[in-house]
């Protein structure tokens, strides 16, 4: 378990990490999400003991990284943003060096290296010089170094940057595999990656945590309202008259002659209210053809953009609002239904 307590890192006048606190539980995959310069790498560098914090502390399984670094670092495997590879070494040679550096006992080294190489599929290149490897393989050597000796906590800083799609999928599979037994923290600014791999997402902006939840919950939390778009074979007045019969409907936007004489309506309702069934019956009962209906869902991308855009002050505001929302959320959690994106077609 990792506890990050009121972490502050200042570079001169610039505050890279601003009073960041969070707890990471064992056996889960965490995603660190944030735009460039949000303080992801700095936080990771402090967590792994590469640099010191200006204020605050990080506890790894109860050991402080600043006061008991040796005990704390034992539990961590770290792949920095740029893999720390010695170009003049061969892959196997490098992993042997890393194993020795990590203090893996001599008898267990060969096995640990073999395990790491199998996991990252490095067996074919074990005898090659690192400088002659492709970027993907270099990344894998870095990953192998991080998972060497299978530490409890594996921290990966943008593990898939610069890889081709096939390699990205391979690395993701490795991460998923690791996540079954270990705590994995990975940072990324690629949203699909985080939502595909992680159990929990922490969104960081301007060195502050703006949200921390599962990818699904984050999408839900950020929805103030839900929107439904329908395409109907009728004119605006008819539709307006019909929609007035449903009390839950808020704003409506009309776009006439959308395609083939259809009228497109975007309906805004309160969150948690699903009017799709009512709409279906309404139009069916009145013999009006409902051609298309789909509900908008705020994607993780929208959440991310909403949370991370804007100045530091705004981020603080969003943070406060989110906390408030989280509290309300937990109080009436049962009443909330899962929403799914559905498309209903009616001929």
């Amino acid at each position, binding site marked *: 378990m990792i506890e990050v307590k009121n972490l502050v890192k200042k570079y001169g006048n610039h505050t890279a990490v601003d009073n960041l606190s969070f707890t990471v539980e064992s056996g889960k995959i965490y995603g660190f999400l944030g735009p460039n310069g949000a303080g992801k790498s700095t936080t990771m560098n402090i967590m792994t003991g590469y640099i010191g914090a200006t204020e605050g502390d990080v506890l790894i399984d109860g050991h402080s990284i600043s006061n008991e670094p040796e005990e704390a670092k034992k539990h961590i495997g770290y792949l920095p943003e740029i893999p*720390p590879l010695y170009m003049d070494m061969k892959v196997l040679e490098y992993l042997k060096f890393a194993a020795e550096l990590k203090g893996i006992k001599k008898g267990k080294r060969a096995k640990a290296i073999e395990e790491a190489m199998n996991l990252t599929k490095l067996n074919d290149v074990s005898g090659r010089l690192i400088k002659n490897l492709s970027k993907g393989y270099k990344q894998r050597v870095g990953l192998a170094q991080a998972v060497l000796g299978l530490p409890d906590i594996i921290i990966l800083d943008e593990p898939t940057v610069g890889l081709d799609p096939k390699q990205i999928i391979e690395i993701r599979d490795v991460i998923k595999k690791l996540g079954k037994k270990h705590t994995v923290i990975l940072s990324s600014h690629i949203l699909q990656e985080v939502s595909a791999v992680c159990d929990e997402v922490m969104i960081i902006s301007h060195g502050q945590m703006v949200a921390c939840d599962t990818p699904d919950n984050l999408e839900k939390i950020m929805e103030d309202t839900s929107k439904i778009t329908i395409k109907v074979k009728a004119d605006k007045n008819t539709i307006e008259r019909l929609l007035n019969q449903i009390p839950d409907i808020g704003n409506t936007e009309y776009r006439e002659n959308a395609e083939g004489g259809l009228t497109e309506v975007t309906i805004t309702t309160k969150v948690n209210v699903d009017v799709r069934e009512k709409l279906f019956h309404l139009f069916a009962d009145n013999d009006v053809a409902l051609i298309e209906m789909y509900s908008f869902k705020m994607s993780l991308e929208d959440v991310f953009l909403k949370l991370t855009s804007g100045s530091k002050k705004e981020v603080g505001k969003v943070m406060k609002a989110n906390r408030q929302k989280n509290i309300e959320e937990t109080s009436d959690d049962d009443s909330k239904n899962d929403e799914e994106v559905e498309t209903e077609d009616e001929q």
Partner: protein
Amino acid sequence: MNAVYKRDLKSYFNSMIGCLYIAFIVALVGIYFSFYNMKSGYPYFGDVLNSVAYIVFLALPMLTMRSFSEEIKSKTDQILYTSKVPVGKIVIGKYLSMVTVFTIPILILCFCPLIISAFGSHDFRTDYSCILAVFLIGCAYIAMGMFISSLTESPIIAAVITFAVLLVLQLMTGLTSFIPSSEIGSFIGCLIAVIVAGLIYYSLAKNGFMAAVLVVIAGIALTVVYIVKSSLFANLLPTFLNKIPLTQSLNNFSLKTFDVTAIIYYVSVGCMFIFLTVQSIQKKRYS
């Protein structure tokens, strides 16, 4: 520590720099040895070694330039500092690997007195104490080069600065003739040194008040000493500066004196720079 030592040592021979340095030193001393000792029949190897020692030292930046700056540049220092090996041990591992490379040509030079002894009169004691002195000075300079390398992320800058410092040390005797040897001159020189020390303290500790207080106290103390006994300042700066270069006492060894003070001086300079390297790395990580 072992892991860092082995990796660095291997890297010196992978990258040819180690081989190049050894070849350079052996060839250089070999030329002098064959000319003076072999051809001219001069039986003292120590003297010959003293006359080439400065080139041996001036080539040391070749070894030390990459030690830390290359790691900082390629970000490989991350694997070192996030491992559970303490920084002190990493520094010592790296230092020992450089010392090992430096030891190889020194060991080869140890054969020279033996070769001389095969042809008649010889003085093993003086020759080997000279070799020991050169080795220890080299070790101290390696520590200094390593410290300079830990300050920058460019091996070239590290090499140039180390070379410049070594050159200034080498030319110190000549340079001190420019410094006033009068009492007032030395007094002013000491005051300037105190102010510079105060500025360094301020830049490190960021405590202006404390720096000012220290400078004022030291200044008053100097003035009092100057007023009470100004003869103390006569020739003070040149004498002091002349004592700094490590090579200054090298002559004592070839004059058949085993200078223990000098040995202690070499070792303590080496230790000081190892300590400073650790401090400079820690400062970088925590600021």
